[in-house]
């Protein structure tokens, strides 16, 4: 069904998304004992990029040009299906989460082939790793969804989140905690944060997501950066929806709780990034398989 009221929230999230990135950076800065960049830095970057011209490699074709549009549009569309915690999403229907992940999928598809379009071996490398990790994350995500569906007997995100009540936490908190952990891990992976990937490094060989977009510049790169922030928002929102059981019917209260939770998640990510080192690439699959194992445990818990 459609909740017109939530449309505002959709635009709101489009607006706020980049803040999360800044928050992460700020957290890291604090840990490193620096003052760090201003909270709106990401917005400045975006605007700057939008102002610039652009450079295309002569190897590339229209695929390269269309890819950023598609991935950004994809993730924007998904935000129409993501509720703010207990506040229902603009669109909600049975199995909407399937659409969410497949929309991310098409974005990924085009980012990857765009990387191959440049014919650069580094970007090829990045592409290869990207598909490798996504091949792991997708089944795990769906496994966690199985758990949630079993727990709440609901099959759409909004209802799922509604189904997560304090009572549910008391009855099957263990499963929920595990699910939260898994989703956090996946958040780190999908948004190429430490310990999976280091967005700040400048050694192409070590990067995954960043290396794929080496050849972008100007507005295209702005789209990509913005898309990345939206993706971060999306996963944080999923996490938030799971860990916040409280539900007052007051939109303002719920909204603010949700936002606070989002910030908390961003801080958490920052903390992790400051405390952990980047994993060796070969270890990443191991970590993901571990997450898969946890997911299996969750499912087992729900079958009882």
């Amino acid at each position, binding site marked *: 069904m459609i909740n017109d009221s939530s449309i505002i929230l959709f635009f709101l999230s489009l607006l706020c998304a980049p803040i999360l990135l800044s928050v992460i950076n700020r957290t890291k800065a604090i840990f490193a004992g620096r003052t760090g960049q201003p909270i709106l830095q990401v917005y400045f970057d975006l605007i700057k990029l*939008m*102002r610039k*011209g*652009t*450079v*295309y*490699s*002569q*190897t590339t*074709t229209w*695929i390269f040009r*269309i890819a*950023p*549009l598609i991935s*950004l*549009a994809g993730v924007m569309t998904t935000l129409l299906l993501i509720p703010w915690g207990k506040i229902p999403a603009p*669109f909600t*229907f*049975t*199995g*909407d989460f*399937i*659409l969410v992940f*497949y*929309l991310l*999928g*098409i974005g*990924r*598809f085009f980012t*990857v*082939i765009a990387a*191959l*379009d440049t*014919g650069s*071996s580094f970007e*090829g*490398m990045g*592409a*290869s*790793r990207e598909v*490798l990790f*996504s*091949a*792991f*994350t*997708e*089944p795990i995500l*769906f*496994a966690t*969804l*199985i758990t949630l*569906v*079993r727990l709440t007997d609901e*099959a759409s995100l909004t209802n799922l989140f509604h189904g997560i009540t304090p009572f549910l936490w008391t009855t099957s908190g263990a499963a929920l905690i595990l699910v939260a952990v898994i989703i956090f891990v996946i958040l780190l992976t999908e948004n190429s944060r430490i310990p999976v990937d280091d967005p700040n490094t400048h050694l*192409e060989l070590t990067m995954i997501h960043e290396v794929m977009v080496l*050849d972008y510049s100007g*507005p295209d790169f702005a*789209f990509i950066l913005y898309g990345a922030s939206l993706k971060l928002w999306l996963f944080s929102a999923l996490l938030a929806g799971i860990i916040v059981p409280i539900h007052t019917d007051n939109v303002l209260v719920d909204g603010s709780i949700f936002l606070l939770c989002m910030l908390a998640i961003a801080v958490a990510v920052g903390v992790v990034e400051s405390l952990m080192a980047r994993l060796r690439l070969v270890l990443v699959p191991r970590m993901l398989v571990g997450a898969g194992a946890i997911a299996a445990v969750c499912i087992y818990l729900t*079958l*009882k």
Partner: protein
Amino acid sequence: MNMLLVALAILGIGGLAALLIHRNPKFANGIGSGSAVFGSLLGLMAAILLLFSSPPSETIRLPWSVPYGTFYIEADALSAFFLIPIFLLTGLAALYGARYLWEPKNEKRIGSHWAFYNTLAVSMVMVVIARNAILFLISWEVMALASFFLVTMEDERESVQRAGWIYLVSTHLGTMVLFFFFILIGNQASSLDFDRFVIAGSQIHPQASLFFVLALIGFGSKAGILPLHIWLPEAHPAAPSHVSALMSGVMIKTGIYGIIRALTWLGPPTTGWALTLIVIGSISGVMGVLLALAQHDLKRLLAYHSVENIGIIFLGLGIGLLGQANDLPVLILLGYGGALLHTLNHAIFKGLLFLGAGSVLHGTGTLDIEHTGGLMKRMPWTGALFLVGAVAICGLPPLNGFVSEFMIFAGAFQGIQYLNALSTIPGIIAIVALAMIGGLAVACFTKAFGIIFLGKPRSSHAAEAHESKPAMLIPMIVLAGLCVVIGLAAPYTLTLLKPALNTLSTNVAPTDFVKLTNQIQFPLTYVVVLSALFAVLVALLFWLRKWSLSGKSIATTVTWDCGYAKPTARMQYTASSFAQPLMKLASGVVRLREHLVKPEGFFPSEGSYSSKSPDVVHEGFWTPTLKASEWFLLRFRWIQMGSIHLYILYIAITLFVLLIWKLQ
């Protein structure tokens, strides 16, 4: 019905004519392909009419003078639904083939080719509408033989001969199992007419599971489920591209049809059957896509993807069965609906992809992915159309592949939602498998598309590739169009499924049926709306970028090369390097034969790496089995040693034994 028969007649006569005038290749080609195209057009209309005809099925039943045979054909909704992809692809592939085959080296065989092609078309139709075991088996085997001769068209190639033999053997063994299936079930029904086969109406028949297994093996070998899939990766690369499109797109679906038809006879299913189907489906799906990922021959890769998609269809069927077993109507509709729709979809995009592979071969002369690259620039149309197919087969919105996978997913989730602990297990397996398949399929097709069409040419083949003629592009355009249309008109495709679903979900009350179909239509509608929004957003962003770039510099330069002096096309990521990390992880199930020559010394002169991935099941199971039985049989060769004395000894011994044994 009459229209259908007329279509068949056109196909048959056209094929015969093509054979008779094979001395004049030009006419033979024209008549053969022409009749195929017109016949299928007519047939397509007939099929659609039949699908929505007010008496749900039309029947022709004539006496037939062969033992146990009656000439009994019927076109109910299920048959009609399967007729649609058959005729659709037959026509388009024929249109494509007419141009594709038109080369001097083919002139001698073009007549016979079209004869077999049309025979294949006719026999596939007969398989779908036959209602008597003898008629069915005859059509079934004619289908196999016709396709066999199409596969072995270029018989001078060693690989083709091997492929032909493997295909022939596996299909024959499958048919043998079908013999048992039909005979046993026929003995139950004391008739070989399908309408008598409905054994033991509502209660569970003691032998039902046996029949189920037999049907699964017999039809599964045609559909290409693991471990009976070995003929697909051999046959599809061997066949001419439009034939591979037809076989992989439609012919293997007759196996699916057979299983569905068999299920309608076997009475109420058990959760065990559902689990079986889902386990087989998951294994076929995941293994199929993994093996595909390891291939460097484009058509082999596509062939393994057929295995994968058959797996997905099985998952759908499994969900449907799960619904029947626990009478959960919504599952029946979502599961069977998804399976049927995916059957249609797979026919469309796999046809598209094989035709695309055909024009790659036509344009570059090679199917080895490693020798291609940068084709997007030289053959833009093929590239774009192949891209559509690739996105569709990965099941990504907004194209058709997503719709069917969505239905299966939704079905599985609903199952998890409504069923009790143990009977959810099939659903869980299905979901995880589907998710895995999804991720891996993306990996596989980004590799295929990216390496073939993007980057720089890796060989001279690719460097002077040329775009195909319109006659070859038009069919692909039509198929690509269908991918988009079905994707964007998802709720309406449901009306296409409804009649067929109605015949399958017998134990659902008509009122519920309507209610449920609407209930399914609802999410699909939203999927479509959001897909549309997505498209709109893309357009907006495009406009936005245009606006922001207006009046600014848009430079072009070399790809960022980290300051390497002379980057060459050979330095690009290759298919094998792209797939390598996944292959490393999957090394348990997918064997990778690597051949590496390391660069040696201070001034390394040469180094090379090549890898190929033989089929695990083939090498691990079938070959040893054959070898063993051959060894066993050859043990008995001493019997015929040439010595007449020995021969007479046999007679004497036989006589003695019989006398002493029988007269005591």
